[in-house]
């Protein structure tokens, strides 16, 4: 009796302790097998879909990383859409004007950082409602880019894929993962960098404490205002990279309202990934995959599903997750509240 209940406790605790590793590894294995089967059946399409998944997920993960940095420090950023849009435009204009792609990327990131600073100024210094601060950024970016945009400009080119030596020659994995343009590589590197920053460094711990309990953080001598400023500005720069990705890497030109809701999907990605860089990356890949499949279906015309139904999926999934129907996603506790020093 005692021994059996003891072993029950043991098995329970084994599952309980390791389920966070077991479930993902089982899923990953299944996914891998599925990919290999599809690759054997139709190599060209499988490769195209996976490569497109990576491309589609890049702006989403960059936007989500911006959201994570801001929200972990307690600032709600619904202005990601606007930050992306204005940065896309400035990066494009820099490319038209100078033809220097590196300079254009930097200008895009700086634009995002500047808008991040505006958000920090409104929400930290002015203690304005953060949702309104974000909405101001969105309308402002839409208006400014629409007002200043002129048609008929040409650029000298866009960012090209850089094959990573011998890695790019591996079948399937090479072309999908190791033959990408620079911003895509940067995005993947940032995922891991930010994961380490947030959860393994003292600065990350400070950021999270500011987002969870600013009063306690302040008592410990952490500068709440400065932390919020830095995170929002760096986050803005990352959203700026997402904008630069759109005009310099993906499309090569600018159109009015070209972000087309990606900033809001990035919010969904952030929530879906539970405010966690690696989680958000997986979510971004999932949403990117849904988009890639949607394009593929339309292209092949095999299924008669209206593409709008596939377009709904990310949003509905996000509603389900925030409602706690499947795996609750909890935001940082002090989010959205301006901090008042006593």
């Amino acid at each position, binding site marked *: 009796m005692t021994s059996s209940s003891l072993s029950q406790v043991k098995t329970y605790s084994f599952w309980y302790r390791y389920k966070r590793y077991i479930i993902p590894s089982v899923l990953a294995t299944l996914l891998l097998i599925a990919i290999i089967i599809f690759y054997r059946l139709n190599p060209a399409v499988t490769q195209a879909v996976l490569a497109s998944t990576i491309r589609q997920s890049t702006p989403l993960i960059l936007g989500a990383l911006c959201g994570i940095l801001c929200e972990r420090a*307690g600032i*709600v950023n619904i202005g990601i859409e606007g930050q992306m849009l204005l940065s896309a435009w400035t990066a494009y204009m820099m490319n038209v004007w100078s033809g220097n792609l590196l300079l254009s990327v930097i200008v895009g990131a700086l634009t995002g950082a500047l808008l991040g600073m505006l958000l920090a100024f*409104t929400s930290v210094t002015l203690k304005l409602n953060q949702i309104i601060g974000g*909405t*101001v950024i969105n309308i*402002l970016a839409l208006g400014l880019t629409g*007002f200043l945009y002129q048609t008929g400009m040409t650029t000298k080119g866009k960012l090209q894929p850089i094959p990573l030596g011998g890695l790019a020659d591996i079948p399937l994995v090479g072309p999908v993962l190791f033959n990408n343009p620079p911003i895509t590589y940067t995005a993947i590197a940032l995922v891991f960098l930010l994961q380490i920053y947030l959860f393994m460094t003292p600065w990350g711990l400070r950021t999270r404490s500011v987002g969870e309990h600013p009063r306690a953080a302040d008592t410990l001598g952490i500068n709440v205002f400065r932390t919020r400023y830095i995170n929002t500005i760096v986050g803005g720069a990352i959203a700026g990279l997402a904008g630069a990705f759109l005009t310099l890497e993906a499309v090569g030109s600018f159109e009015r309202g070209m972000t087309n809701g990606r900033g809001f999907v990035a*919010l969904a990605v952030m929530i879906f990934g539970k405010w966690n860089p690696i989680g958000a990356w997986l979510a971004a890949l999932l949403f990117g995959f849904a988009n890639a499949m949607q394009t593929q279906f339309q292209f092949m015309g095999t299924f008669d599903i209206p593409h709008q139904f596939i377009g*709904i999926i990310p949003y509905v999934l996000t509603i389900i997750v925030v*409602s706690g129907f499947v795996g609750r996603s909890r935001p940082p506790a002090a989010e959205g509240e301006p901090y008042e020093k006593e």
Partner: protein
Amino acid sequence: MTAETSVKKPANWLLSIWRSIRVPLVAIILALIIGAIILLVTGVSPIKAYLALFKGAFGSTKYLQRTLEKTTPLIFSGLAVAFAFKAGLFNIGAQGQLLLGAITSAFIGFSLKGLPPVLHISLALIGGGLAGAFYGFIPGMLRSFTGAHEVITTIMLNYVAINITDYLADGPWKDTSPGNVVAMTPQIEQSARIPFIGPVPVGFLIAIVISVLIWYILGKTNLGFEIRTVGLNPHAAKYAGMRTKMILVLTLVISGLLAGIGGAVETQGVVYRYQPGFNTGLGFDGITIALLGRTSPLGVIPAALLIGAMKAGSNVMQFEAGVAKEILDVIQALMLFFVSADMIVRWIIRVRKESAEEVTLTTSWGQK
């Protein structure tokens, strides 16, 4: 002191109006000044642009009619956002509720035939309102019973609504008349179109009546009192025995109803069909309007008139002064910024905040 106030009552009444409009007024002027600077930098005379804008909005009966047409749905979306603010809810989803209202009213408008106008118009309006109300009910229930913050859920629902309406306008409800390749519904029947009295659309009058009604509900009824109490302090409301969860749901339902009617009015009074992309931004304009109107149902009317005039005048401005009309979005964003960052405005005009004119807004999704 008290004797003095009772003697000077009419003056005080005027003073309180002045106090509630001075901050929005200065915010509007600041936004226009910065807009003028942007115009100057891009080499356009701001005076010429603003004069053309004014002419395009009020210069003739035709223009005035257009301004009122544009204003009508804006009153409703402003009311929708302002109403939710009163219960401490931020309804970013007015856009989605409005889209569903617009397409539902279009469907009722083109599918039912041979009805008397009064019946057809009201049916389509009510149908649109109910669609919006249903779409407000979802985030309301989620907020009350799962704790999912309405800002997230309504942002997501906006995109769901865009997809649904795109699908309907390009699929089952598409205009099948020969030669049409665009995604849009057929034109609605003549009997569903909202008529005009002179240059004044009847919808505009309905909007004013409903604004007064909402003002009455919020200020003079038990329900309004409960909504405002929940907005000011949900814990106190709960402690006082109010059913806060039901009130939150009801608030979003009414807010959605108003936004839905706004969409219906746009369909029945301006566009006469549903076409994707025609109503973009109306819901977001509602946020600016609600805040310019200090979240008061009556304040929403002049605020909507201002934004409506800007929208209506934009064409003439573009044509006569050669200014891209997107500059008005920039000005609108600045208005939203200055009216909500009222400490800047107060610092400029050197007035302190008074508790009576304070606008309480919900904070964000970190809070439960």
